[in-house]
Protein backbone atom coordinates (compact mmCIF):
# COMPACT_ATOMS: atom_id res chain seq x y z
CA UNK A 1 0.00 0.00 0.00
CA UNK A 2 2.77 2.46 0.96
CA UNK A 3 6.40 2.11 0.02
CA UNK A 4 9.25 4.55 0.71
CA UNK A 5 12.62 3.91 -0.95
CA UNK A 6 15.64 6.00 0.04
CA UNK A 7 13.46 9.04 0.64
CA UNK A 8 15.10 12.28 1.70
CA UNK A 9 13.40 15.55 2.50
CA UNK A 10 14.54 19.08 3.12
CA UNK A 11 12.73 22.40 3.45
CA UNK A 12 14.03 24.84 0.84
CA UNK A 13 17.80 24.90 0.87
CA UNK A 14 18.05 23.75 4.50
CA UNK A 15 19.59 20.49 5.74
CA UNK A 16 17.80 17.17 5.20
CA UNK A 17 15.23 16.57 7.94
CA UNK A 18 14.64 13.00 6.72
CA UNK A 19 17.45 10.84 5.37
CA UNK A 20 17.31 7.56 3.44
CA UNK A 21 13.89 6.57 4.73
CA UNK A 22 12.82 3.17 3.42
CA UNK A 23 9.84 1.15 4.67
CA UNK A 24 6.64 -0.57 3.61
CA UNK A 25 3.15 -0.41 5.07
CA UNK A 26 1.05 -3.42 4.11
CA UNK A 27 -2.76 -3.11 3.88
CA UNK A 28 -4.53 -3.66 7.19
CA UNK A 29 -1.48 -3.14 9.41
CA UNK A 30 -1.22 -0.97 12.54
CA UNK A 31 1.95 0.96 13.39
CA UNK A 32 3.20 3.40 15.92
CA UNK A 33 5.56 6.15 14.81
CA UNK A 34 7.66 7.54 17.61
CA UNK A 35 10.85 9.45 18.29
CA UNK A 36 12.04 12.53 20.15
CA UNK A 37 10.85 16.02 19.26
CA UNK A 38 12.49 17.28 16.07
CA UNK A 39 13.27 13.76 14.88
CA UNK A 40 11.14 14.27 11.75
CA UNK A 41 7.81 12.65 12.68
CA UNK A 42 5.71 15.55 11.37
CA UNK A 43 7.76 15.72 8.15
CA UNK A 44 7.30 11.99 7.58
CA UNK A 45 3.55 12.35 8.21
CA UNK A 46 3.45 15.27 5.73
CA UNK A 47 4.95 13.01 3.09
CA UNK A 48 2.42 10.31 3.98
CA UNK A 49 -0.60 12.59 3.73
CA UNK A 50 0.70 14.10 0.49
CA UNK A 51 1.14 17.64 1.78
CA UNK A 52 4.58 17.78 0.25
CA UNK A 53 6.85 15.83 -2.10
CA UNK A 54 10.22 14.35 -1.18
CA UNK A 55 13.50 15.98 -2.17
CA UNK A 56 14.77 12.61 -3.33
CA UNK A 57 13.84 8.95 -3.34
CA UNK A 58 10.73 7.11 -4.42
CA UNK A 59 7.31 6.98 -2.76
CA UNK A 60 4.63 4.58 -3.97
CA UNK A 61 1.11 4.90 -2.54
CA UNK A 62 -1.94 2.92 -3.56
CA UNK A 63 0.08 1.65 -6.55
CA UNK A 64 0.89 5.19 -7.71
CA UNK A 65 4.47 6.35 -8.09
CA UNK A 66 4.15 9.82 -6.56
CA UNK A 67 7.09 11.24 -8.48
CA UNK A 68 5.09 10.70 -11.68
CA UNK A 69 1.64 11.52 -10.33
CA UNK A 70 0.37 14.85 -11.71
CA UNK A 71 -1.01 17.42 -9.30
CA UNK A 72 -4.62 16.98 -10.42
CA UNK A 73 -4.57 13.29 -9.43
CA UNK A 74 -3.51 13.97 -5.84
CA UNK A 75 -7.03 14.83 -4.47
CA UNK A 76 -8.30 11.33 -5.36
CA UNK A 77 -5.35 9.80 -3.47
CA UNK A 78 -5.82 12.14 -0.50
CA UNK A 79 -9.45 11.01 -0.18
CA UNK A 80 -8.16 7.53 0.66
CA UNK A 81 -6.22 8.99 3.60
CA UNK A 82 -7.70 10.18 6.90
CA UNK A 83 -5.53 12.56 8.90
CA UNK A 84 -5.76 13.64 12.54
CA UNK A 85 -3.56 16.71 12.82
CA UNK A 86 -1.80 17.43 16.09
CA UNK A 87 -3.33 20.94 16.10
CA UNK A 88 -6.68 19.49 14.87
CA UNK A 89 -7.01 22.03 12.03
CA UNK A 90 -10.75 22.28 12.36
CA UNK A 91 -12.57 25.05 10.49
CA UNK A 92 -13.66 27.50 13.17
CA UNK A 93 -16.66 28.91 11.28
CA UNK A 94 -18.22 25.45 10.83
CA UNK A 95 -20.14 23.43 13.42
CA UNK A 96 -18.78 20.10 14.66
CA UNK A 97 -21.25 18.41 12.32
CA UNK A 98 -20.11 20.39 9.28
CA UNK A 99 -16.44 19.84 10.13
CA UNK A 100 -16.91 16.08 10.33
CA UNK A 101 -19.07 16.13 7.17
CA UNK A 102 -16.38 17.82 5.06
CA UNK A 103 -14.71 14.66 3.66
CA UNK A 104 -18.11 13.25 2.66
CA UNK A 105 -19.21 16.50 1.04
CA UNK A 106 -15.93 16.77 -0.82
CA UNK A 107 -16.45 13.20 -2.03
CA UNK A 108 -19.89 14.25 -3.31
CA UNK A 109 -22.05 12.26 -0.86
CA UNK A 110 -25.62 13.59 -0.77
CA UNK A 111 -26.55 15.78 2.20
CA UNK A 112 -29.37 13.54 3.50
CA UNK A 113 -26.93 10.62 3.77
CA UNK A 114 -24.21 12.80 5.30
CA UNK A 115 -26.18 14.06 8.28
CA UNK A 116 -27.32 10.75 9.73
CA UNK A 117 -23.88 9.21 9.30
CA UNK A 118 -22.08 12.16 10.93
CA UNK A 119 -24.49 12.36 13.88
CA UNK A 120 -24.01 8.66 14.56
CA UNK A 121 -20.22 9.03 14.61
CA UNK A 122 -20.31 12.15 16.78
CA UNK A 123 -22.52 10.25 19.23
CA UNK A 124 -19.99 7.43 19.25
CA UNK A 125 -17.13 9.78 20.19
CA UNK A 126 -19.29 11.28 22.96
CA UNK A 127 -20.19 14.56 21.27
CA UNK A 128 -23.91 14.08 20.67
CA UNK A 129 -24.67 17.24 22.66
CA UNK A 130 -22.06 19.30 20.77
CA UNK A 131 -23.21 18.64 17.21
CA UNK A 132 -23.89 22.29 16.44
CA UNK A 133 -21.05 23.71 18.54
CA UNK A 134 -18.24 25.52 16.75
CA UNK A 135 -14.61 24.60 17.51
CA UNK A 136 -13.76 27.78 19.46
CA UNK A 137 -16.39 26.77 22.05
CA UNK A 138 -15.07 23.20 22.42
CA UNK A 139 -12.41 21.97 24.86
CA UNK A 140 -9.12 20.51 23.58
CA UNK A 141 -10.35 16.97 24.06
CA UNK A 142 -13.62 17.69 22.27
CA UNK A 143 -11.77 19.25 19.34
CA UNK A 144 -9.53 16.20 19.16
CA UNK A 145 -12.57 13.91 18.97
CA UNK A 146 -14.10 16.04 16.21
CA UNK A 147 -10.79 15.85 14.34
CA UNK A 148 -10.72 12.06 14.72
CA UNK A 149 -14.33 11.76 13.59
CA UNK A 150 -13.48 13.85 10.51
CA UNK A 151 -10.49 11.62 9.74
CA UNK A 152 -12.45 8.36 9.88
CA UNK A 153 -15.89 9.38 8.55
CA UNK A 154 -15.19 8.50 4.91
CA UNK A 155 -13.66 5.08 5.74
CA UNK A 156 -10.17 5.87 4.43
CA UNK A 157 -7.74 3.10 3.52
CA UNK A 158 -4.95 4.77 5.48
CA UNK A 159 -5.34 6.67 8.76
CA UNK A 160 -2.55 8.92 10.01
CA UNK A 161 -2.94 10.34 13.49
CA UNK A 162 -0.51 12.77 15.08
CA UNK A 163 -0.75 12.46 18.89
CA UNK A 164 -4.45 11.57 18.70
CA UNK A 165 -4.85 10.97 22.43
CA UNK A 166 -2.73 13.90 23.60
CA UNK A 167 -5.62 16.13 24.69
CA UNK A 168 -8.12 13.61 26.09
CA UNK A 169 -8.39 11.84 29.43
CA UNK A 170 -7.05 8.24 29.62
CA UNK A 171 -10.51 6.67 29.37
CA UNK A 172 -11.43 8.60 26.23
CA UNK A 173 -7.87 7.96 24.91
CA UNK A 174 -8.45 4.21 25.21
CA UNK A 175 -11.89 4.53 23.60
CA UNK A 176 -10.40 6.40 20.64
CA UNK A 177 -7.56 3.88 20.30
CA UNK A 178 -10.18 1.13 20.17
CA UNK A 179 -11.93 3.06 17.39
CA UNK A 180 -8.66 2.97 15.42
CA UNK A 181 -8.30 -0.75 16.18
CA UNK A 182 -11.85 -1.43 14.97
CA UNK A 183 -11.13 0.42 11.74
CA UNK A 184 -7.86 -1.50 11.44
CA UNK A 185 -9.78 -4.77 11.72
CA UNK A 186 -11.85 -3.74 8.69
CA UNK A 187 -8.65 -3.49 6.62
CA UNK A 188 -7.65 0.14 7.20
CA UNK A 189 -3.94 0.75 7.66
CA UNK A 190 -3.27 2.89 10.73
CA UNK A 191 -0.19 4.91 11.69
CA UNK A 192 -0.26 6.60 15.11
CA UNK A 193 2.48 9.13 15.80
CA UNK A 194 2.98 9.46 19.57
CA UNK A 195 5.43 10.16 22.35
CA UNK A 196 3.36 8.11 24.77
CA UNK A 197 5.44 5.02 25.63
CA UNK A 198 2.66 3.71 27.85
CA UNK A 199 0.25 3.77 24.91
CA UNK A 200 2.79 2.01 22.65
CA UNK A 201 3.42 -0.68 25.24
CA UNK A 202 -0.30 -1.17 25.89
CA UNK A 203 -1.07 -2.12 22.31
CA UNK A 204 2.05 -4.09 21.29
CA UNK A 205 2.11 -3.11 17.63
CA UNK A 206 5.08 -2.55 15.30
CA UNK A 207 6.95 0.63 16.12
CA UNK A 208 8.71 2.84 13.59
CA UNK A 209 11.25 4.94 15.48
CA UNK A 210 12.68 8.11 14.01
CA UNK A 211 15.93 9.46 15.36
CA UNK A 212 17.54 12.57 13.93
CA UNK A 213 15.86 12.10 10.55
CA UNK A 214 16.68 8.41 10.23
CA UNK A 215 14.25 5.55 10.63
CA UNK A 216 14.74 2.49 12.80
CA UNK A 217 12.32 -0.25 11.81
CA UNK A 218 11.15 -3.64 12.99
CA UNK A 219 12.65 -6.30 10.73
CA UNK A 220 9.44 -7.11 8.80
CA UNK A 221 8.87 -3.55 7.63
CA UNK A 222 12.15 -2.90 5.83
CA UNK A 223 11.50 -1.94 2.22
Amino acid sequence: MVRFQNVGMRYGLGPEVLRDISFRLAPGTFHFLTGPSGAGKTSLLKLLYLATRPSRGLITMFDHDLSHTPRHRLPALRRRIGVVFQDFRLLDHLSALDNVALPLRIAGVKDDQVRAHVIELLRWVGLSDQINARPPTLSGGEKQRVAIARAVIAHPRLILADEPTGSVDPDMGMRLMHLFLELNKTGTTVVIATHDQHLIESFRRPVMRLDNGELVLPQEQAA
Partner: protein
Amino acid sequence: MIQRLRSNLKLADDPAGRYLPSVVATMVFLAVLALVGAIALQQATETWSRSIEGSLTVQIGDAKARDAQQRIDKAVALLKAAPGVESARPLTRPEIDKLLEPWLGKTAMDADLPVPALIDVRLVKGAAVDTAALASQLQQAVPGTRVDDHKPWLASMVRLARTLQWLAVAVVALVGLSTVALVVFATRAGLAVHRDMIEVLHLIGARDGQIAEQFESQTFRRAAAGSVLGLVAAAAIVALVARFASALDAPLLPSVQLGPKSWAILVAAPVAATILAIVTARLTVLTTLRRMT
Protein backbone atom coordinates in the same frame (compact mmCIF):
# COMPACT_ATOMS: atom_id res chain seq x y z
CA MET B 1 -24.17 26.27 -13.20
CA ILE B 2 -26.68 26.90 -10.38
CA GLN B 3 -25.80 23.50 -8.89
CA ARG B 4 -22.13 24.43 -8.93
CA LEU B 5 -22.87 27.77 -7.31
CA ARG B 6 -24.43 26.09 -4.28
CA SER B 7 -21.65 26.20 -1.77
CA ASN B 8 -21.62 23.11 0.42
CA LEU B 9 -18.16 23.56 1.89
CA LYS B 10 -19.23 26.92 3.29
CA LEU B 11 -16.18 29.07 3.03
CA ALA B 12 -15.96 31.60 5.83
CA ASP B 13 -16.81 35.21 5.12
CA ASP B 14 -13.83 37.42 4.37
CA PRO B 15 -13.58 41.19 4.85
CA ALA B 16 -12.02 41.88 1.42
CA GLY B 17 -15.12 40.66 -0.40
CA ARG B 18 -17.60 42.61 1.68
CA TYR B 19 -17.07 45.72 -0.46
CA LEU B 20 -17.71 43.84 -3.69
CA PRO B 21 -21.49 44.54 -3.83
CA SER B 22 -21.03 48.31 -3.52
CA VAL B 23 -18.16 48.33 -6.04
CA VAL B 24 -20.10 46.21 -8.56
CA ALA B 25 -23.18 48.40 -7.98
CA THR B 26 -21.14 51.51 -8.85
CA MET B 27 -19.69 49.83 -11.95
CA VAL B 28 -23.09 48.65 -13.19
CA PHE B 29 -24.57 52.09 -12.46
CA LEU B 30 -21.89 53.77 -14.63
CA ALA B 31 -22.18 51.14 -17.38
CA VAL B 32 -25.98 51.44 -17.55
CA LEU B 33 -25.80 55.25 -17.71
CA ALA B 34 -23.22 55.03 -20.52
CA LEU B 35 -25.44 52.55 -22.38
CA VAL B 36 -28.52 54.75 -21.96
CA GLY B 37 -26.47 57.65 -23.38
CA ALA B 38 -25.44 55.52 -26.36
CA ILE B 39 -29.05 54.38 -26.95
CA ALA B 40 -30.33 57.99 -26.74
CA LEU B 41 -27.75 59.15 -29.29
CA GLN B 42 -28.63 56.27 -31.61
CA GLN B 43 -32.31 57.19 -31.40
CA ALA B 44 -31.52 60.88 -31.95
CA THR B 45 -29.52 60.24 -35.13
CA GLU B 46 -32.28 57.97 -36.44
CA THR B 47 -34.92 60.63 -35.69
CA TRP B 48 -32.87 63.39 -37.34
CA SER B 49 -32.25 61.23 -40.41
CA ARG B 50 -35.92 60.26 -40.69
CA SER B 51 -37.14 63.81 -40.32
CA ILE B 52 -35.08 65.21 -43.20
CA GLU B 53 -35.01 62.16 -45.44
CA GLY B 54 -36.63 62.90 -48.83
CA SER B 55 -36.96 66.61 -48.21
CA LEU B 56 -35.32 69.86 -49.30
CA THR B 57 -35.66 73.39 -48.06
CA VAL B 58 -35.52 76.34 -50.43
CA GLN B 59 -34.73 79.79 -49.05
CA ILE B 60 -35.72 82.90 -50.95
CA GLY B 61 -34.19 86.30 -49.95
CA ASP B 62 -36.17 88.49 -47.57
CA ALA B 63 -39.78 87.39 -47.04
CA LYS B 64 -40.80 91.02 -46.50
CA ALA B 65 -39.44 92.32 -49.84
CA ARG B 66 -41.96 93.91 -52.20
CA ASP B 67 -41.81 91.18 -54.88
CA ALA B 68 -41.43 88.35 -52.37
CA GLN B 69 -44.75 86.64 -53.06
CA GLN B 70 -44.15 86.76 -56.81
CA ARG B 71 -40.70 85.17 -56.40
CA ILE B 72 -42.11 82.49 -54.10
CA ASP B 73 -44.88 81.58 -56.56
CA LYS B 74 -42.39 81.35 -59.42
CA ALA B 75 -40.06 79.11 -57.41
CA VAL B 76 -42.95 76.87 -56.28
CA ALA B 77 -44.15 76.48 -59.87
CA LEU B 78 -40.65 75.58 -61.02
CA LEU B 79 -40.19 73.11 -58.18
CA LYS B 80 -43.53 71.39 -58.79
CA ALA B 81 -42.60 70.92 -62.44
CA ALA B 82 -39.19 69.45 -61.59
CA PRO B 83 -38.82 65.63 -61.90
CA GLY B 84 -38.81 63.72 -58.59
CA VAL B 85 -40.58 66.47 -56.64
CA GLU B 86 -43.76 65.33 -54.94
CA SER B 87 -44.82 68.65 -53.40
CA ALA B 88 -43.56 72.16 -52.77
CA ARG B 89 -45.26 74.27 -50.09
CA PRO B 90 -44.26 77.74 -48.84
CA LEU B 91 -44.11 77.85 -45.03
CA THR B 92 -46.35 80.34 -43.26
CA ARG B 93 -44.85 82.98 -40.96
CA PRO B 94 -45.99 81.19 -37.77
CA GLU B 95 -44.36 77.97 -39.05
CA ILE B 96 -41.07 79.82 -39.71
CA ASP B 97 -41.22 81.43 -36.27
CA LYS B 98 -41.69 78.00 -34.70
CA LEU B 99 -38.60 76.71 -36.50
CA LEU B 100 -36.49 79.64 -35.35
CA GLU B 101 -37.76 79.67 -31.79
CA PRO B 102 -35.32 77.01 -30.41
CA TRP B 103 -32.39 79.11 -31.70
CA LEU B 104 -33.52 82.67 -31.13
CA GLY B 105 -36.03 82.34 -28.29
CA LYS B 106 -39.63 83.62 -28.03
CA THR B 107 -38.77 87.30 -27.46
CA ALA B 108 -36.59 87.45 -30.58
CA MET B 109 -39.60 86.43 -32.63
CA ASP B 110 -41.32 89.68 -31.75
CA ALA B 111 -38.48 91.73 -33.24
CA ASP B 112 -38.82 92.68 -36.88
CA LEU B 113 -35.99 90.50 -38.18
CA PRO B 114 -35.24 89.99 -41.91
CA VAL B 115 -36.29 86.36 -42.24
CA PRO B 116 -36.08 84.54 -45.61
CA ALA B 117 -39.13 82.86 -47.14
CA LEU B 118 -38.94 79.06 -46.92
CA ILE B 119 -40.39 76.43 -49.22
CA ASP B 120 -40.71 72.88 -47.89
CA VAL B 121 -40.07 70.47 -50.76
CA ARG B 122 -41.04 66.79 -50.46
CA LEU B 123 -39.40 64.37 -52.88
CA VAL B 124 -40.90 61.24 -54.39
CA LYS B 125 -39.77 58.27 -52.30
CA GLY B 126 -36.63 56.71 -53.76
CA ALA B 127 -36.29 59.40 -56.47
CA ALA B 128 -32.72 60.47 -57.31
CA VAL B 129 -32.96 64.23 -57.48
CA ASP B 130 -29.94 66.23 -58.71
CA THR B 131 -29.99 68.91 -56.04
CA ALA B 132 -27.17 70.94 -57.64
CA ALA B 133 -28.97 71.12 -61.01
CA LEU B 134 -32.22 72.08 -59.32
CA ALA B 135 -30.45 74.78 -57.35
CA SER B 136 -28.90 76.15 -60.54
CA GLN B 137 -32.28 76.21 -62.31
CA LEU B 138 -33.86 78.03 -59.38
CA GLN B 139 -31.00 80.52 -59.19
CA GLN B 140 -31.49 81.39 -62.85
CA ALA B 141 -35.27 81.71 -62.59
CA VAL B 142 -35.39 83.36 -59.17
CA PRO B 143 -32.05 84.91 -58.25
CA GLY B 144 -31.14 84.83 -54.54
CA THR B 145 -32.55 81.36 -53.82
CA ARG B 146 -30.67 78.73 -51.89
CA VAL B 147 -31.39 74.99 -51.84
CA ASP B 148 -30.53 73.10 -48.65
CA ASP B 149 -30.70 69.29 -48.57
CA HIS B 150 -29.48 69.27 -44.88
CA LYS B 151 -26.81 66.65 -45.63
CA PRO B 152 -23.72 68.55 -44.35
CA TRP B 153 -25.54 69.40 -41.09
CA LEU B 154 -26.77 65.84 -40.68
CA ALA B 155 -23.32 64.38 -41.47
CA SER B 156 -21.62 66.44 -38.77
CA MET B 157 -24.36 65.64 -36.25
CA VAL B 158 -24.12 61.93 -37.01
CA ARG B 159 -20.32 62.13 -36.74
CA LEU B 160 -20.59 63.76 -33.34
CA ALA B 161 -23.20 61.24 -32.20
CA ARG B 162 -21.06 58.30 -33.36
CA THR B 163 -18.02 59.69 -31.52
CA LEU B 164 -20.05 60.01 -28.34
CA GLN B 165 -21.40 56.48 -28.81
CA TRP B 166 -17.87 55.09 -29.09
CA LEU B 167 -17.00 57.05 -25.97
CA ALA B 168 -19.91 55.35 -24.18
CA VAL B 169 -18.70 51.94 -25.40
CA ALA B 170 -15.20 52.81 -24.14
CA VAL B 171 -16.67 53.73 -20.73
CA VAL B 172 -18.49 50.36 -20.59
CA ALA B 173 -15.25 48.52 -21.53
CA LEU B 174 -13.28 50.48 -18.92
CA VAL B 175 -15.92 49.69 -16.29
CA GLY B 176 -15.66 45.99 -17.26
CA LEU B 177 -11.86 46.04 -16.92
CA SER B 178 -12.08 47.80 -13.55
CA THR B 179 -14.58 45.19 -12.35
CA VAL B 180 -12.19 42.41 -13.38
CA ALA B 181 -9.30 44.09 -11.54
CA LEU B 182 -11.38 44.55 -8.37
CA VAL B 183 -12.64 40.96 -8.39
CA VAL B 184 -9.07 39.69 -8.88
CA PHE B 185 -7.94 41.79 -5.91
CA ALA B 186 -10.84 40.70 -3.68
CA THR B 187 -10.41 37.02 -4.62
CA ARG B 188 -6.65 37.07 -3.99
CA ALA B 189 -7.23 38.75 -0.65
CA GLY B 190 -9.81 36.06 0.16
CA LEU B 191 -7.37 33.31 -0.80
CA ALA B 192 -4.71 34.83 1.44
CA VAL B 193 -7.15 35.11 4.35
CA HIS B 194 -8.33 31.51 3.89
CA ARG B 195 -4.91 30.00 3.15
CA ASP B 196 -4.97 27.63 6.16
CA MET B 197 -8.54 26.58 5.47
CA ILE B 198 -7.76 25.91 1.81
CA GLU B 199 -4.76 23.79 2.84
CA VAL B 200 -7.01 21.69 5.09
CA LEU B 201 -9.58 21.27 2.30
CA HIS B 202 -6.80 20.19 -0.07
CA LEU B 203 -5.47 17.66 2.45
CA ILE B 204 -8.96 16.25 2.96
CA GLY B 205 -9.11 15.69 -0.80
CA ALA B 206 -10.79 18.77 -2.26
CA ARG B 207 -9.98 19.50 -5.89
CA ASP B 208 -8.98 23.02 -6.97
CA GLY B 209 -12.28 23.22 -8.82
CA GLN B 210 -14.25 22.55 -5.62
CA ILE B 211 -12.41 25.31 -3.80
CA ALA B 212 -12.92 27.64 -6.77
CA GLU B 213 -16.67 26.88 -6.58
CA GLN B 214 -16.76 28.26 -3.03
CA PHE B 215 -15.32 31.55 -4.25
CA GLU B 216 -17.61 31.55 -7.29
CA SER B 217 -20.58 31.06 -5.01
CA GLN B 218 -19.58 33.97 -2.76
CA THR B 219 -18.76 36.19 -5.73
CA PHE B 220 -22.10 35.32 -7.39
CA ARG B 221 -24.09 36.38 -4.32
CA ARG B 222 -22.16 39.61 -3.89
CA ALA B 223 -21.94 40.59 -7.57
CA ALA B 224 -25.61 39.78 -8.22
CA ALA B 225 -26.70 41.92 -5.27
CA GLY B 226 -24.46 44.79 -6.45
CA SER B 227 -25.64 44.46 -10.05
CA VAL B 228 -29.32 44.68 -9.16
CA LEU B 229 -28.62 47.67 -6.92
CA GLY B 230 -26.63 49.40 -9.70
CA LEU B 231 -29.37 48.79 -12.29
CA VAL B 232 -32.13 50.09 -10.01
CA ALA B 233 -30.12 53.21 -9.13
CA ALA B 234 -29.30 53.90 -12.80
CA ALA B 235 -32.94 53.35 -13.85
CA ALA B 236 -34.06 55.83 -11.19
CA ILE B 237 -31.56 58.44 -12.38
CA VAL B 238 -32.56 57.93 -16.05
CA ALA B 239 -36.24 58.32 -15.16
CA LEU B 240 -35.46 61.50 -13.23
CA VAL B 241 -33.35 62.99 -16.06
CA ALA B 242 -36.01 62.05 -18.65
CA ARG B 243 -38.64 63.83 -16.55
CA PHE B 244 -36.54 67.02 -16.30
CA ALA B 245 -35.64 66.86 -20.01
CA SER B 246 -39.29 66.58 -21.08
CA ALA B 247 -40.08 69.67 -18.99
CA LEU B 248 -37.30 71.66 -20.73
CA ASP B 249 -39.16 71.97 -24.07
CA ALA B 250 -35.94 71.71 -26.06
CA PRO B 251 -36.77 70.01 -29.37
CA LEU B 252 -33.13 69.37 -30.31
CA LEU B 253 -32.39 67.36 -27.16
CA PRO B 254 -32.51 63.62 -27.83
CA SER B 255 -35.36 61.96 -25.94
CA VAL B 256 -34.97 58.42 -24.55
CA GLN B 257 -37.74 56.00 -25.45
CA LEU B 258 -36.64 52.59 -24.11
CA GLY B 259 -38.21 49.81 -26.11
CA PRO B 260 -37.88 46.05 -25.38
CA LYS B 261 -34.56 45.89 -27.29
CA SER B 262 -33.08 48.78 -25.29
CA TRP B 263 -34.28 47.27 -22.00
CA ALA B 264 -32.74 43.93 -23.00
CA ILE B 265 -29.38 45.69 -23.52
CA LEU B 266 -29.66 47.49 -20.15
CA VAL B 267 -30.64 44.33 -18.24
CA ALA B 268 -27.79 42.48 -19.98
CA ALA B 269 -25.30 44.88 -18.32
CA PRO B 270 -25.80 43.59 -14.72
CA VAL B 271 -26.07 40.00 -15.94
CA ALA B 272 -22.80 40.42 -17.85
CA ALA B 273 -21.17 42.07 -14.82
CA THR B 274 -22.19 39.15 -12.59
CA ILE B 275 -20.96 36.53 -15.08
CA LEU B 276 -17.73 38.49 -15.58
CA ALA B 277 -17.18 38.56 -11.80
CA ILE B 278 -17.85 34.80 -11.41
CA VAL B 279 -15.54 33.81 -14.27
CA THR B 280 -12.83 36.17 -13.01
CA ALA B 281 -13.07 34.75 -9.49
CA ARG B 282 -12.83 31.16 -10.77
CA LEU B 283 -9.83 31.84 -13.01
CA THR B 284 -8.08 33.80 -10.24
CA VAL B 285 -8.57 30.96 -7.73
CA LEU B 286 -7.42 28.24 -10.14
CA THR B 287 -4.35 30.23 -11.18
CA THR B 288 -3.42 31.16 -7.61
CA LEU B 289 -3.95 27.62 -6.25
CA ARG B 290 -1.64 26.18 -8.88
CA ARG B 291 1.06 28.49 -7.55
CA MET B 292 0.13 28.09 -3.87
CA THR B 293 0.38 24.31 -3.44
